[in-house]
């Protein structure tokens, strides 16, 4: 491991780890905010991702950046949250006898970018957030999301097409 901060953080230095958090918090939070509906939930999840990263720094492989490592942890937390939310939602729907609303009725003609992004499936949203909204390479996105490179490219294509359709823009904008 070349990065001296990561080496020192692995040896137990709180100061080194806090500097890693200072350096990477913006990128990680921006990614998580695009996955979560509420900024407060996103910040809480980003903090938990950093704490998990601290506890599992020994799992950080050579050649993988710290930012990629933490974003991967955050994505898995978001996936787990989504599964839990879906289970709870299903139980509550059964309990109250509610019918699930059709998605098309909730789509407004004046969608903001965030709202449009929120309509994408989580894996597509994550791929678009990383490679289109931020400067991650396809390989980094594949590492973060734990998906094959081809799947990442397919998610980006589909996600971008859907966003363009929702926002009413052409592909070159």
């Amino acid at each position: 491991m070349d990065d001296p901060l990561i080496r020192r953080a692995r040896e137990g230095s709180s100061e080194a780890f806090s500097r890693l958090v200072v350096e990477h918090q913006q990128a990680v939070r921006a990614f998580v905010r695009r996955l979560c509906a509420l900024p407060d939930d996103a910040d809480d999840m980003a903090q938990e991702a950093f704490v998990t990263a601290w506890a599992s720094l020994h799992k950080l492989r050579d050649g993988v950046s710290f930012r990629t490592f933490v974003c991967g942890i955050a994505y898995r937390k978001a996936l787990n949250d989504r599964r839990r939310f879906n289970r709870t939602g299903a139980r509550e729907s059964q309990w109250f006898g509610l019918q699930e609303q059709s998605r098309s009725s909730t789509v407004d003609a004046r969608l903001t970018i965030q709202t449009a992004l929120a309509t994408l499936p989580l894996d597509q949203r994550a791929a678009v957030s990383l490679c289109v909204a931020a400067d991650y390479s396809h390989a980094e996105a594949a590492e973060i999301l734990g998906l094959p490179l081809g799947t990442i490219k397919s998610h980006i294509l589909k996600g971008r097409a859907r966003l363009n359709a929702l926002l009413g823009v052409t592909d070159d904008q």
Partner: protein
Amino acid sequence: MLMNDTPAAPPARDIGFVVEVMKRVEQRRLNQNLALLVLGTAALTTLLFLIMPHVTPALTTLGQSIWPLVIIVTVAGFSLVGFEQARRAIGLRF
């Protein structure tokens, strides 16, 4: 459009966020250390409970001459553990 989507961008420097992360990290470190301490103490107590009935008669037969050695070894052991804990806490390396 997505890259210029400013509402999603958090500040470049946010001490509050860093402090909250480090608070959680230290909390987890404390919990881990406490768990280790409790487990270690329980293991040592069990070990002493098992071996002391066999060791005590031997120590008694050795007489008073062994006690200075026991005290020196005990003090040295505690000092080493204390030194190692302090070294880890302040991040000192050799």
